[in-house]
């Protein structure tokens, strides 16, 4: 067991999980009378095959990075933020509102719109944080509830105040847009926008806050051991609320990727976007680290975009990629299984 330990094991688990997920996904394709080789060939072509696909992959990954960061940040501070989806929706709406209703030069308008989204997400995170700190209400329950409140409230607000033809808001002003003609041209007119820059910046910020600042020290200490933190004079309640606020801000920023980047407006959503929930998977696969999350988000973004080509070129339904993603998560979650398997291989049957 000594061979497979520490850092190496941290990297090994996700890699082996991805390989196993693809392998078993292939078996399922075989059983369902699809050719896995041509399916995966189409999938890879759908991710890297041309500039358009590559651009779309990166575009799809941007909000996933941010929602993954939101989950990971909360997790590092001992909290389970299942409310990323709701925080994302309010962030989306806030950024679109600022994008439509303000007239400002781009250098001010764009950051203002992004910050508005982050602030709305933070506020949505603070509520469960406060309930936890003050009344010990478990954040998993409250964040799930807050998702539904967010979904129906944002829909209600759009319907009542912001409705444009097509069950959506008006387009945001160009000065608040993340869209980039240059990036679009570079990628054969995909919808790639500057959001990826925001996402990578956010990953840097998370790493910096958690590991380099006294705030991060406090947040992590509270996450690991509230009693010792209190004994050491750290304000536990304040840090729980702060952790949820920062986590919510990342989630809100994920919403701005959609509002200011991909769509330029907000639709009335019949159901959750799923990006917030995918953040849990991204964070898990990325081992709650900044770099890991970026890689995991790119992988999931690629699988989602690539599955479209898989369907059109190889005739394999996109749902199979959903199964592959689920399998990957399953294997990461059951990392003990992988530990066991690798030990089998490295120690010739002994464990």
């Amino acid at each position, binding site marked *: 067991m000594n061979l497979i330990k520490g850092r190496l094991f941290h990297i090994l688990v996700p890699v082996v999980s991805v390989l196993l997920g693809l392998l078993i996904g292939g078996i399922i394709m075989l059983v369902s009378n699809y050719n896995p080789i041509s399916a995966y060939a189409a999938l890879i072509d759908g991710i890297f095959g041309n500039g358009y696909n590559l651009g779309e992959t990166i575009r799809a990954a941007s909000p996933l990075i941010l929602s993954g960061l939101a989950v990971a940040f909360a997790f590092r501070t001992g909290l389970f933020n299942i409310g990323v989806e709701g925080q994302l929706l309010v962030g989306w709406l806030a950024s679109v509102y600022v994008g439509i209703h303000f007239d400002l030069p781009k250098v001010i308008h764009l950051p203002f719109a992004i910050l508005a989204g982050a602030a709305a997400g933070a506020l949505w995170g603070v509520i469960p944080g406060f309930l936890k700190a003050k009344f010990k209400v478990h954040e998993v329950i409250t964040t799930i509830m807050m998702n539904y409140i967010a979904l129906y409230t944002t829909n209600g607000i759009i319907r009542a105040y912001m409705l444009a033809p097509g069950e959506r808001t008006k387009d945001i002003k160009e000065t608040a847009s993340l869209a980039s003609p240059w990036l679009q041209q570079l990628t054969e007119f995909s919808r790639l926008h500057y959001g990826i820059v925001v996402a990578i910046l956010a990953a840097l910020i998370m790493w910096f806050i958690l590991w380099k*600042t006294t705030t991060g020290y406090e947040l992590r200490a509270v996450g690991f051991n509230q009693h010792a933190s209190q*004994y050491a*004079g*750290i304000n536990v309640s304040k840090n729980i609320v702060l952790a949820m606020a920062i986590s919510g801000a990342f989630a809100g920023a994920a919403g701005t990727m959609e509002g200011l980047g991909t769509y330029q407006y907000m639709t009335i959503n019949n159901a959750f976007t799923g990006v917030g929930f995918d953040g849990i998977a991204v964070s898990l696969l990325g081992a709650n680290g900044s770099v890991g999350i970026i890689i995991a988000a790119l992988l999931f973004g690629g699988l989602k975009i690539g599955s479209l080509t898989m369907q059109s070129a190889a005739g394999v339904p996109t749902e199979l990629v959903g199964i592959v993603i689920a399998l990957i998560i399953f294997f990461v979650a059951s990392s003990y299984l992988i530990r066991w398997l690798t030990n089998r291989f490295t120690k010739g049957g*002994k464990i």
Partner: protein
Amino acid sequence: MEYVIEMRNIRKEFPGIVANDNVTLQVKKGEIHALLGENGAGKSTLMNVLFGLYQPEQGEIYVKGKPISITDPNVANRLGIGMVHQHFMLVENFTVTENIILGKEITTGGRVDLKKAAKEVKALSDRYGLSVDPNAKIENISVGMQQRVEILKTLYRGAEILIFDEPTAVLTPQEIHELMEIMKKLVAEGKSIILITHKLKEIMEACDRCTVIRRGRGIGTVDVAETNPDKLAAMMVGREVNFKVDKTDASPKHTVLKIQNLVVEDARKVPVVDGLNLEIKAGEILGIAGVDGNGQTELLEAITGLRKAVKGTVELNGKSITNHKPRKVTEAGLGHIPQDRHKHGLVLDFSIGTNMVLQTYYQQPFSKHKILKFPAIFEKANQLIKEFDVRTPSEHTLARALSGGNQQKAIIAREVDRSPDFLIAAQPTRGLDVGAIEFIHSKLIQERDKGKAVLLLSFELDEVMNVSDRIAVIYEGKIVAIVDPKETTEQELGLLMAGGKKQKAGDRSESH
């Protein structure tokens, strides 16, 4: 002579550390064999090798004369090796019987036959004089009883060789005595016992032979009848150990801590500290003696700001710290070695280095403008690790990975290093070996001699009497007497702790 267990020249390495180096352990059938060593000496590692949890890099294991490779705990179980863990592995809301049969249930027609199982448990319990009620729920029985359930669990699985991992750490003196009787009964019935311990008294009382490990190396095996505690201690620590605490008379000066009419309520709103008055002076160690549950914990929590005082005042250096936040109390000049080092003393998942700045991380030089300065943090950590002889592979090792004694040394290093005017040491030596105890006592006395005020809370009367300059007896939330340790006896203290009245000076000579 055939040994029932023989471990020859065992070597076990972990990254950065050799936990066992050339250790040999030979256990005869029907003996109680002590495995003695300081915290972190490698006792548990050796037993985990025997129990199949670790594989040794070198060495052989023989069970009843046959060479055997113990690859996992199931193999150990089949060979008749059972472990009574220090931290019990019991399901709280199951009955005794349900816990014992867990994983080895007797079934009739697919259903668990609890009646039959209970009978078997009862028979087993009677045979070894354990007097365990098979139908009691675990959560309703005492810690001592829970330990007997653990013993029954191993016996039920047919164990011939029982390993006891520091079994007395959680027991009261009465329970310890009973456990010793049980162990003697077990060996009389043909079982063999390996007792992991660092308490010399227990070895002298119950064991036949003793194997000593020091810093991972096997030092040797001795017959208990031919040795004495001093010799054993010297083998364990590697030098002569001084059991008597060396100290000069205290020269107390001005009052540092002053508590007046303090009332503190527990979670049920019962005033467990009830009008308590106490003064502690610079340059003295004040020991608090009392039976657990007389308000000691709440008193300390109220002083340190972890619990609200309902009435009364606490002053530190003449300034009120009553109901101040923990950080303000710390900054006013308090050092606190907490009772529960895992719960309050350390963030176990932080490195030992970052734990060293748990109260000071926000101050210069450890951070500036809210940015942590890791070079300064680890430089400080390294200095403290050296100064206080904290044995750790590096300052980056997780606090969790250190032995209890070294964790405690780290906490003391951190608290003493801030040079607080007032130091609280709550059960500072609980669960530690003689070497660490000696070290910690000398540090407390050093602080006293520097002119600090020290409050010592301990449930071990020996410790209170040896280390303190004055002893305050706490009973039902009040200080009922203050005595001079040089003029008192254990009997008198015991009487006062139970709520008795202080005897007049003239009567004392007749009482013993």
